[in-house]
């Protein structure tokens, strides 16, 4: 199978920070808003280089979303930044009315998504955010897999008109997508061609899917691996093309099995090409404290879980 090299592990949030740094230089309409988490969101450079376009809102996320919506009136392109939990669940109605329904060009950028936030525990580990955001009409939902992709997605969002949710994380993870790979919103990336099973992964689980595909190859199983960075709008064509070939699917995401990528894929399949599917996702529970690795192991969100799910789904063909 195609080999992917980790060019140096980094956190995806630093990719966001690097993207903001570049946008600061290239797009004078880009403004950044933060709710008391400059360091965590890697806003330091943007703030230093463009203090007039950086807005420290304080610990007041509802106000932040409203201010961002208002700034679009006047042509600004606001990027809000806080943890995923406070970016979505805490401010759902503000996003719903002032951003999504009002069709405002706000980019809601969320770090520390999912279990890999680690030791802070379940209060901060939102596993429902993809579902919350994808249910909003008109909302673009993106979950990136590594540093390079997160940087590229951040930059691409500035040229995309409309409300968007960009989800990334805290831990240092392999950086393996090409630095010059264009980020096309809504376009899946075929990472590895295979014939026996399709693995559709998003976010931190993409690297795990590649590791799983290698392990499967050693067992004589040919796995196709697709990186879905844009959960909405979903690249249904890429999914259906692959499943027509392999006949079964495993979805993998750092999210509740309810409401996430897996359900979007299942809907696509049921409408167009019914096929067996297994879900590598959190089984409708909250998270807990622990290291990211321990949590991903305990909640079954790693390459071993993907391998097991692939073997299981193939028996259901």
């Amino acid at each position, binding site marked *: 199978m195609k080999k992917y090299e980790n060019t140096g592990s980094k956190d995806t949030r630093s990719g966001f920070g690097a993207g903001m740094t570049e946008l600061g230089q290239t797009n004078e309409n880009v*403004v950044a808003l933060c709710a008391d988490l400059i360091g965590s969101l890697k806003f330091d450079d943007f703030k230093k280089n463009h203090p*007039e*376009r950086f*807005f420290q*809102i*304080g610990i*007041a996320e*509802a*106000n*932040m*979303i*409203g*201010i*961002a*919506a*208002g*700034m*679009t*009136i*006047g*042509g*600004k392109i*606001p990027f809000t930044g806080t943890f995923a939990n406070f970016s979505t669940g805490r401010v759902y*109605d*503000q996003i*719903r*009315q*002032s951003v999504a*329904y*009002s*069709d405002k060009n706000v980019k809601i950028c969320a770090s520390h998504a999912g279990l890999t936030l680690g030791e802070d525990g379940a209060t901060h580990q939102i596993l429902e955010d993809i579902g919350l955001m994808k249910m909003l009409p008109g909302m673009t939902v993106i979950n990136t897999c590594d540093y390079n992709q997160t940087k590229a997605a951040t930059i691409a969002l500035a040229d995309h008109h409309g409300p968007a949710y960009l989800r990334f994380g805290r831990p240092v993870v392999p950086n393996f997508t090409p630095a010059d790979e264009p980020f096309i919103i809504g376009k899946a990336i075929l990472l590895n061609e295979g014939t026996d099973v399709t693995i559709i992964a998003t976010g931190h689980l993409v690297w795990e899917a590649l590791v799983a595909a290698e392990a499967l190859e050693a067992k004589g199983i040919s796995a196709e691996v697709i990186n879905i960075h844009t959960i909405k709008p979903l690249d249904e064509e890429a999914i259906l093309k692959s499943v027509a070939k392999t006949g079964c699917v495993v979805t993998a995401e750092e999210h509740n099995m309810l409401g996430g990528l897996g359900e979007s894929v299942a809907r696509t399949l049921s409408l167009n090409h019914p096929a067996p599917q297994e879900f590598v996702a959190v089984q409708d529970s909250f998270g807990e404290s622990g290291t990211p690795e321990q949590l991903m192991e305990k909640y079954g969100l790693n390459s071993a879980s993907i391998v097991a799910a692939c073997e299981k789904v193939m028996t259901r063909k």
Partner: protein
Amino acid sequence: MSNIQQLHDFTTQVRRDILRMVHAVNSGHPGGSLGCAEFLVCLYQELMERKEGFDMNGIGEDIFFLSNGHISPVFYSVLARSGYFPVSELATFRKLNSRLQGHPTTHEGLPGIRMASGSLGQGLSVAIGAAEAKKLNKDNKLVYILTGDGELQEGQNWEAIMYASAKKVDNLIATVDYNGQQIDGSTNDVLSLGNLRAKFEAFDWDVLEIKEGNNIEAILAGMQEAKAKTGKGKPVAVLLYTEMGNGVDFMMHTHAWHGKAPNDAQLESGLAQNPATLGDY
């Protein structure tokens, strides 16, 4: 420049529009709409510096946000009669496929609306954002925002009130429709706002009160004073003492008409108290 009689006539016609709109669909919010009729007429006909036509970004002109979106009837009437869309379209209020949704929205492309409102407590934050954008654009025009008083029970307002003074958002005039009523009764009974002036002042806003919020001359004088307070490092709050249901005797001095439409006889009575001036839609 309008004279007082013209503004009065305009307001009377707006009252007729409000009554006829809510009566036609047997739903909507006449009470707060009637109470804010003079204010919105003064704003759009006299106080705001507006450009011809409608541009979402509103650069180089004063812009207005309605946070208490349920008083959409008065907003729609004033917008239509200020030239943003045909007055005849008022007949579609709250009907299927209308741009005049129950609560205002940008979603249907109705000129004059820059933000959806209805879920309360969000408008002040949005107005602050628009005011910050004006500063970035070196646009010296103002941002106006109207909120209900009961609406101030929503916590987001106090995040916004804290922010606006701390960050010196001084190109903003926030007016509170201070009618003392909400759905379940008086604000004092439901959840007292306490000393609202003292609260805004404690948050370091410049505050002024318009005690006769249904008196056109008092509104013009008070709002001119408010405009004069902008640009001095503080956001400006106006406590506008209004009478819910103003101009229709049986709708006044009660919260009963917050969200209730008049029947045929009540409509007739209300219209008789407000003779047509500009022609009905």
